[in-house]
């Protein structure tokens, strides 16, 4: 394609493929209820965006759902990063057949789908059904494999001599891990944090089984109110909700774009 035509084609593609759906969200979220019944691409005759955002914030009780989401996302990320890195470090440094087998087992969860139905039964037996702790455990079980995969690969690129220096100074494994290894893992942990935040923040399927009806998260709340009578055909409120829910991720992305992009791609192409 010629150099003059390419920018035009690129911008046109963005406008049609991404611009149109996003405009539908903003335009519909800005409409009154009557105008939004049949969502289309016409701009609202008068803008009610702020009003709709406020209404959905109050009516759908977004603060509670936001609290639920944070209550689950933050500990999940912390747990999988720390426990996953600990395991990955040892798996990367020990080269026996046994650890190779453990590694294969540890990363199998990247591909294999979790057993969503029986995990509910298990959580009941553990007394964790419908609790944030149960949900965190389930997410940890699902996403530890991602962390183990990324971090093990990364540790193998770090020369072991860096650890030895500390070891000669008398540092035990915990001190070596905390003071030497963990700080070196920062780039790969940033990647893993982004990926896991993305998955957990947006998840509705696993949340439905584990905490559905007991604890609200943002996607679960959107799902419930959008399927329930309250929001049926209230597209202006559904899309106001979509804006509120997507904003934190899009703002984070806008700020840390470069890091996020290099992070996401680093694991994929070797």
């Amino acid at each position, binding site marked *: 394609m010629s150099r003059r035509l390419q920018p035009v084609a690129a911008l046109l593609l963005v406008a049609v493929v991404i611009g149109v759906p996003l405009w539908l969200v903003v335009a519909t979220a800005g409409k009154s209820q009557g105008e939004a019944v049949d969502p289309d691409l016409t701009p609202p005759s008068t803008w009610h965006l702020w009003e709709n955002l406020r209404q959905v914030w109050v009516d759908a009780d977004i603060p509670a759902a936001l609290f639920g989401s944070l209550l689950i996302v933050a500990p999940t990320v912390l747990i999988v990063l720390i426990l996953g890195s600990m*395991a990955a470090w040892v798996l990367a440094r020990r*080269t026996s057949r046994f650890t190779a087998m453990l590694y294969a087992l540890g990363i199998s*969860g990247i591909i294999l789908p979790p057993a969503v139905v*029986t995990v509910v039964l298990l959580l009941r037996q553990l007394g964790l059904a419908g609790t944030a702790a149960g949900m965190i455990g389930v997410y940890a079980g699902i996403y530890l494999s991602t962390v183990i995969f990324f971090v093990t690969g990364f540790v193998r690129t770090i020369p072991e001599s860096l650890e030895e220096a500390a070891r000669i100074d008398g540092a035990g494994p915990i001190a070596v891990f905390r003071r030497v290894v963990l700080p070196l893992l920062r780039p790969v942990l940033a990647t893993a944090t982004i990926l896991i935040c993305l998955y957990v923040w947006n998840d509705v399927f696993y949340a439905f089984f584990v905490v559905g009806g007991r604890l609200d998260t943002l996607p679960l709340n959107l799902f419930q109110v959008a399927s329930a009578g309250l929001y049926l055909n209230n597209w202006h409120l559904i899309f106001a909700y979509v804006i509120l829910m997507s904003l934190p991720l899009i703002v984070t992305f806008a700020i840390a774009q470069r890091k996020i992009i290099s992070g996401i791609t680093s694991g994929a192409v070797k």
Partner: protein
Amino acid sequence: MTILQNGAPGSITRRTHPLWFLLPAYGLLLVFFFLPTVFNFVYAFTDWSGFKAAINPVGFENFEQLVSDGTLFRSLRITIVYAVLVALFQNVFGFGLAVLLERDTAVNRIARTFFLIPVLMSALAVGYIFQALLKGTELLAHTTWTVVVVALIHAWKWMGLSMLIYLAGLKTIPLDVIEAASIDGASRRTAFWRIRVPLLAPAVTFNVATALLGSMNGFDIVQATTGGGPARTTEILNIFIYRTFGQGLFAQATTMSLVLFLLVALMAFPVIYVLRKREEVL
């Protein structure tokens, strides 16, 4: 370092890299991932339901029922068709975008950013957007073509990720390889299809495998656009599991969950093997 690894395996690493570091992570994996999976193999053969407290073994009754009423193979077929379509669309779009937006110009950087927005959005939200956008058309109400439309929507959400990975793949190809080709008289078109595209094999492996296996485990987009309809023609396995679980038919839901597990496990090995093999040939 080599001495540490080759001489007397474990004798030194036992102290410097103790196995108990694995315990917390593998404990969580065992309880919250492997144990439920083992339960899948047990409770698929029971009459577990929301209607009574006792759980009794029933042998293959759940499978027989799901096979005889056609649900099992229909759901399997729809899931596989859906996954293949998603993998195809997502990779074609992602590759096309990567090639179109490859040069590092200001316009291209902005365009790439926009194509990443759907990746960040919740799949549920994406589903609602397209449900609204396609309202009034027949596209989400056709018993043959709706599955294709939903797969296109799924690909729309994730094509930005495939684009990123193809872009990274294109960047790893050393410039001198392409220069050498042009010195040897290869046209730009030939250099592109015969040299650059084959060298993208690792990116293709990753993209096809994640798209295929990820969409087999899909739920949100289908649920938010069609809910499995019209006439259950887009009811992939997870939609069935969600629906029957909601009806209190836990054993049937577990059976399908086991089917999904086996499907992904069985597909994962050949898919990754074939794609890896292709890499080696190159």
